[in-house]
């Protein structure tokens, strides 16, 4: 494993359900994310992107394969070890809907310092430590006293990002972090994510919005039916997609000037995909 790899996933298999209902959600997935790198994870609905994220966080057990986080092999971890790892805050997670990651009855300040209190930091010290983070996610200090319901969607998502950063994680996984936001807030959050790279944190950015991915990711990984079918630099994957599914995906994205690939082209790719 290269010295600067923060995440290394090797030949990961994941199954859901038991007996007759057992179904494979991930099939031999391998992925590496380095320090300060942002990897965009795109692909079909139901292809296993969120499952991969949940497996890395120990929320879903793997049936085969290895997951190494910041040099530590976590694949064999028991529940208790996972809890300890999560408490240390080495890996953090940001959901699409910030209301799900923020307690509606807890002020923004208390939400932000909670991960630090859990680690035994005193309240006063914790409050001092979160202040520079507010600046990084462009939030005004006066918001600290408010409840999540009193913030706009964009502000809430920035709080969720700040909260994920409090423990100085090596890796943050963001699952559709901007899809519930309007244009201005989306740009704001994406700008913040780009700036984060300079601090060395590694990001996995899951999104259906190829424009957002193109804007923040250094590399892109494409999932299709439980498999990782293509990885490459963002430019490679977008301008010269190799796998048929990736070609269909990129060709389906409308753009302001040229529109998506022609319908005949897409139909041909879809047919090729079915016979592949």
């Amino acid at each position, binding site marked *: 494993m290269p010295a600067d790899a923060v995440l290394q996933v090797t030949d990961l298999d994941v199954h859901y359900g038991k007996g007759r209902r057992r179904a494979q959600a991930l099939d031999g997935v391998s992925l590496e994310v380095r320090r300060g790198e942002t990897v965009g994870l795109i692909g079909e*609905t139901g292809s296993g992107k969120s499952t991969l994220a949940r497996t890395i966080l120990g929320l879903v057990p793997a049936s085969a394969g290895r997951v190494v986080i910041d040099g530590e092999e976590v694949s064999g971890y028991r529940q208790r070890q996972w809890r300890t790892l999560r408490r240390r805050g080495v890996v953090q997670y940001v959901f699409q809907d910030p209301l799900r990651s923020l307690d509606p009855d807890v002020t923004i300040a208390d939400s932000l310092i909670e991960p630090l209190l859990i680690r035994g930091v005193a309240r006063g010290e914790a409050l001092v430590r979160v202040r520079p983070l507010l600046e990084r996610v462009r939030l005004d200090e006066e918001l600290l006293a408010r409840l999540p319901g009193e913030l706009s969607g964009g502000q809430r998502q920035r709080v969720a990002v700040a909260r994920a950063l409090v423990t100085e994680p090596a890796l943050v996984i963001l699952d559709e972090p901007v899809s519930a936001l309007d244009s201005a807030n*989306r740009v704001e959050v994406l700008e913040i994510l780009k700036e984060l790279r300079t601090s060395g944190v590694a990001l996995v950015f899951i999104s259906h919005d190829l424009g957002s991915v193109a804007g923040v990711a250094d590399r892109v990984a494409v999932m299709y039916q439980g498999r990782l079918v293509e990885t490459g630099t963002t430019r490679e994957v977008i301008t010269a997609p190799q796998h048929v599914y990736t070609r269909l995906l990129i060709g389906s994205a409308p753009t302001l000037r040229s529109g998506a690939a022609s319908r005949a082209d897409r139909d041909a790719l879809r047919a090729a995909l079915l016979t592949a």
Partner: protein
Amino acid sequence: MTILSELRTPHAVPTLPDEIVLALRDVRIYDQVNDREIVHGISFELTPGRVVGIVGESGSGKTLTCRAALGILPEHFAISGGSIEITGQEIAGLTPEQWTGLRGSTISAVFQDPASYLNPSIRVGSQIAEVIRVKTGAKRRQARHRALELLAAVHLRNPALVYEQYTFELSGGMLQRVLIAAAIAADPTVLIADEATTALDVTVQAEILDLLADLQERIGLALLVVSHDLAVVAQLCDEVLVMREGEVVEQGPTAEVLHNPKHEYTRMLIAEHEQYGLERYLEAEADRDGGLTRAG
């Protein structure tokens, strides 16, 4: 897609190409609890086959405008000015019975949160078949057959299986397609699509946009599209309205508004789109290939 041409029921009244099927004239929407006007006057006209788009800031009143046109404003909200006409009929005096007659068959809608519009304890196929039975008077077997055709038309992989499933067994993207099938089941004249493809991945989105384009061309479906994605609007809409804080700040032919924006807010929306758009890569590449552009 051949079945689409057969989707229109024989007894549906054909609309004339220049008939105005939906007209909003300086519509204002008022919040009675907080005693403030939310939408400060919006006007546009839809004729058969025409597509009008609304883009703009979150909370600017796009969804409320759609709901006003469907006669389903939330409690405490009211139309406080202007007028709305559906196929020439002023909606102000409509009785609940008349609304029931219009909704689904003349004007129909798909919203962003599909789960809240379907009954969780009834198989989704039966729900579509029921719409077809009530709105077109079809017999049970006919209705089932047509519901299956519609599920195939929205590109669900296994229509027969989906027909028998409940909402909790379907992914968000599948549910959205079921809802679109239900919305077009009774051959509406006007379809309102409020962020209808936002939850879908772009390959499915492209299929749904193709389907809407087919319906628009073949049966003259008129569309009102709300989307935060300027590229979707560029692809689909003839005319676009840009809303901000309840105000229509700019309105005109889509190509004109998006390529030659007049208002500062429109310019900002376009800049934001381009800052994080595939265009940056694809166009740079096209230039390198000697001006080769993607098919339109």
